[in-house]
């Protein structure tokens, strides 16, 4: 069967009394698909151009304003200066050695804190979420502790445990714990009672109820909290390092501050931002894997 030309197909839709064959239909579909593809490609290009524009506008503006002296680069740094600092840090390291060593130290602290805080938060959240009485007893205290600006605990930890790794891990873990805990707790509370009844009727023990219903259901909440939690693990490690450390990106930042060197402060920030973005990406991968059963969200925040 010879496929009609696109022109024939176009005519067919307007010619009265012409019965469109299956070939025409496929042809139409092809054209619709192709034009949709073209539209999408055009949209993507426009999107990335606009995004690039924003970056050029902000960074370029910053560079120009500091060059013209409208903004004092002594206080606010300068993009070209930040770039020079970055090159300097990676090429020659700091007074204490390679920058990679500092990144490794900060990341180790943040990751340990993240893991410890997450595990503790999940366990406490699941336990309290399932035990009404315990939750009612401890509820007010948890609220009080949550109201404390916990970042200040960093000072105490440094005084108590010295300049080593431990106080940094501890501060990161404390910050992570509360975020994960509240989400796990809420997740358990939001479990569909129908599903619990169903699994109980099927013969589940309390442990099996947790395994088959409570935990999978709370997992949605827990994993959602990990995005925020990782950011807080980094903050905890950095702040504790600023307060007192022998190694780490936080130390670089606090020393740069002492030297009135805003470019290096911003360079440290940029390094940690890149790392956090990478971690965020990994967590998103994990989320897609573990929560494959979820219906796709209608407003998936694409690329934000």
């Amino acid at each position, binding site marked *: 069967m010879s496929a009609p030309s696109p022109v024939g197909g176009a005519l067919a839709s307007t010619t009265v009394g012409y019965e469109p064959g299956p070939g025409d239909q496929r042809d139409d579909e092809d054209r619709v698909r192709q034009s949709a593809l073209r539209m999408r490609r055009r949209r993507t290009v426009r999107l990335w151009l606009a995004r690039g524009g924003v970056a050029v506008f902000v960074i370029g503006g910053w560079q120009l304003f500091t060059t013209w002296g409208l903004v004092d680069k002594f206080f606010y740094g300068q993009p070209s200066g930040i770039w020079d600092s970055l090159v300097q840090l990676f090429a020659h390291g700091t007074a204490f050695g390679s920058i990679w060593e500092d990144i490794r130290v900060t990341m180790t602290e943040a990751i340990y804190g993240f893991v410890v805080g997450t595990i503790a938060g999940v366990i406490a959240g699941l336990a309290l979420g399932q035990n009404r009485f315990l939750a009612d007893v401890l509820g007010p205290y948890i609220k009080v502790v949550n109201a404390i600006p916990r970042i200040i605990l960093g000072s105490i930890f440094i005084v108590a445990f010295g300049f080593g790794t431990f106080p940094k891990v501890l501060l990161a873990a404390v910050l992570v714990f509360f975020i994960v805990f509240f989400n796990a707790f809420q997740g358990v509370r939001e479990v569909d009672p129908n599903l619990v009844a169903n699994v*109980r009727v099927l013969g589940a023990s309390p442990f099996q109820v947790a395994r088959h219903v409570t935990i999978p259901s709370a997992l949605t909440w827990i994993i959602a909290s990990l995005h925020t939690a990782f950011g807080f693990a980094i903050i905890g490690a950095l702040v504790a390092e600023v307060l007192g450390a022998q190694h780490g990106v936080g130390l670089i930042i606090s020393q740069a501050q002492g030297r009135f060197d805003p470019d290096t402060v911003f360079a440290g920030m940029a390094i940690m931002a890149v790392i956090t973005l990478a971690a965020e990406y990994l967590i998103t991968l994990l989320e897609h894997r573990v929560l494959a059963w979820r219906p796709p969200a209608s407003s998936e925040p694409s690329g934000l």
Partner: protein
Amino acid sequence: MVVRPGGRTGAAEPRTGHSARIQISGLTKRFMTPSGEPFTALRDVSLTIEPGQFCAIVGPTGCGKSTTLGLVAGLDRPSAGSVQVAGAEVSGITKGISFMFQADALFPWKTVLGNVMTGPTLTGVSKRAAIESSRDWIRRVGLSGFEDRYPHQLSGGMRKRVAMAAALINEPEILLMDEPFGALDVQTKAIMQTELLGLWEQTRPSVLFITHDLDEAVALADRVLVMTSSPGSIKESFDIDLPRPRGSVQEIRYQPRFTELQHQIWSSLKDEVERAYARTAGAA
């Protein structure tokens, strides 16, 4: 062969499976309302379901049908009276029952296969045997090829079929069904009713089947109970003496005896429905 309802003792009934008697006596259930007032949902319900009997319950909305089923399943405790299954008082979850809930109760994080497998897995069947019998049940409800789908990827009718397979796979002695086909279109509903009857005739569990559809009640059941408006109690019991096996439920509707029974039940139910409606309309 005609199986008489009411289960005359000693009558030779074609029962290949096992089933249990349900005895409810003086059952009362009260709930605490948020305002602190006790609310009586069920008052002094007494009834006996013979082993292997298919019993339908109809009644106005809010009269306590789901509550009754929850008490038989052991999900809730009676405020007064007792529920006995196979001669033993219900305490904790009743053994040997399956429950098809009014609301969608599939596990959204499990595939079709995982959902159907949950029952056997929890009762300690080996994984391989559980997968095998799950595949068999998925085929019986006509969902072969959908084993790996998640519930959100299924239509409403397909989800109900998964729930039915998940309920029947444990070969229960007692099957509790709370408006199982309530939200289905007429054609799917008829197909599933016929399917259910076929499956029930194979293993013959005792069935408590809640519905608002009188045609459905008469077509499927040995006996139809009418409940009063809230607080619910048993108003009347109708024996459905239509011959079994009933075959296609769509055809049985045209028998004169069917229409006659349906009319009797409706005239009993009508007053209660009107009373329930007047009450809620008056309260609003």
